């Protein structure tokens, strides 16, 4: 089951990094989302002339998705994180198992990012008195789509419960 455009650009990436961590480690020590996001961002941003801006943006994007993963991945599973740079595009991929009880809600939510109501959806989550149930950092993901113009694609393999989420960051967001 696919949401959004999942094909990779034909050209070889200009740059790539792959990391693997245990979802449980993020869940047990939430601060590790921050650490991992900052590590990845510093490493990736190093090649950009607007390094500080790039680092701030990449860390913010990565952290929000890691916080979502930390709430949707079952304990004892692994998270594969990879970042690739193409001409005009940075792709951040997160592949992990999805908790069975959030599959439908999570996929429905990711589908809603393709609607024309992002603005109202964003403000509804920003101003909500209570967090949604179940919560998987819906607001964080909406912030990125609403304000950083990232595009989110997802591929779910129902038999295994494995999901791959791909976040496309236009390079012009990094070189404003």
């Amino acid at each position, binding site marked *: 089951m696919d949401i959004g455009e999942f094909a990779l650009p034909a050209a070889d990436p200009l740059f790539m990094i792959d990391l693997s961590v245990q979802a449980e480690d993020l869940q047990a020590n939430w601060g590790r*989302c*921050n650490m991992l996001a900052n590590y990845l961002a510093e490493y990736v941003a190093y090649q950009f002339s607007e*390094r500080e*801006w790039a680092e*701030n*943006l990449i860390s*913010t994007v990565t952290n929000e998705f890691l916080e979502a993963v930390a709430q949707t991945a079952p304990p004892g599973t692994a998270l594969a994180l990879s970042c690739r740079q193409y001409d005009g595009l940075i792709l951040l991929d997160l592949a992990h198992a999805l908790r069975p009880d959030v599959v439908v809600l999570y996929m429905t939510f990711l589908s809603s990012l393709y609607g024309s109501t992002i603005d109202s959806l964003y403000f509804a989550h920003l*101003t909500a008195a209570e967090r949604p149930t179940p919560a998987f950092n819906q607001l964080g993901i909406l912030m990125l789509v609403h*304000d950083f113009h990232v595009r989110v694609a997802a591929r779910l393999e129902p038999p295994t419960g494995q999901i791959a989420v791909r976040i496309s960051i236009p390079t012009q967001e990094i070189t404003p």
Partner: protein
Amino acid sequence: MKHVGPTYRLSYDALDQQISFEGTLRITDADDAAAVLAYLIAIHGQIQGTLRLSFRRLRYINAEGMRALSQFVAFARDRATVNLKIIASGVLAWSVRFLPNLRALWDGVEFIVHDDGFYGSQAIIEDLDFVPLLRNQTRILWPQERAVIQRHGLARGMRVADICCGCGDVPLLAMRELGPSFILGVDHSEAAVEYARGLQAEFQVRNAEFQRGDATALLLEDNSFDFVSCRLSLQIFSQPEQIVRELVRITRPGGRIYITGEDYDLILGHPEQEPIRATYQAAASYGAAMGMDLRNGRRLSGLLADSRLEDIRADHIVADTVNTEREAFAAVIESWRDFSAFTIGSRLDLSEPDRATLLAGYDAHLRSIRWPQGYASWTVIACSGRKPANP
């Protein structure tokens, strides 16, 4: 009144009615979020008028942090007793993208980016075209300044920060010739920082880094450098004391803060002193119209004294036609001439007669420099002070 979380600090300054957010506000649990909101509400209850929320030193936020801010805006909107002014930093991507959304929640919210229109001459100073002028200045000043900066405390093995480092040539020269263990150069100009990184690669200098930053809200730890400099930069800011406060904050107790400035009244040229004097007086007044104080050198020791620094030292750094190669000196004056008469002159829409008068003085200065019997000098005032061991 402060609230300190695991990775962030919120502090209230009653003088400015401002809450400053520092560190990383990636809130990880509901109790933490509730504590932040309670702190904001408590401050809200103490004031009238406008409450400023400054995010200039908050490196990151997450969705839970934004949710807490949204809840606070809703609280303020419902009370409608206090307006909010939200201050972002142009060097932090999240702050200029996320924070404007709070304005949509209530018309009592004002949003500004602090370093948009940071100083009057920002557009021209932060342009790549300004770099050759900086390079020319370094070429004639560094040979004189090298000894002065050591007298003011820069020594082998130190951790050094050069704030408003421009194109980075001086920190790289200092790294290579004076042997500190590490130098960090910070500048607000993206073009200058990129140039500095290129120069570092070209010079193959290790243990130096350059980063973009706001000198009035540095994203650097307190007490983290032995020696902190800010050279020939304070003259462009209307409130240099804000920068000096940051220089002092990042200097370790016992470390030294070193600043340099201009004094256009001390620029000499012989034998045509009168047109030269008139031109530099005019240039200083045109600079003032752009928000620059080109006689700020005489105010530097007072700035350091106001910051309660100890052991204040002052020196003149003099580049003249005796200690400096004449053509290198002339290249500096040509850069100044073009910058003043054309770059600033165009901004100020100078009349042709005023521009001609200005150019005549610079040309007289150039003749003084190039004439073997002539004498010319440029004096920069250097001051430093020591941060008290128990500030």
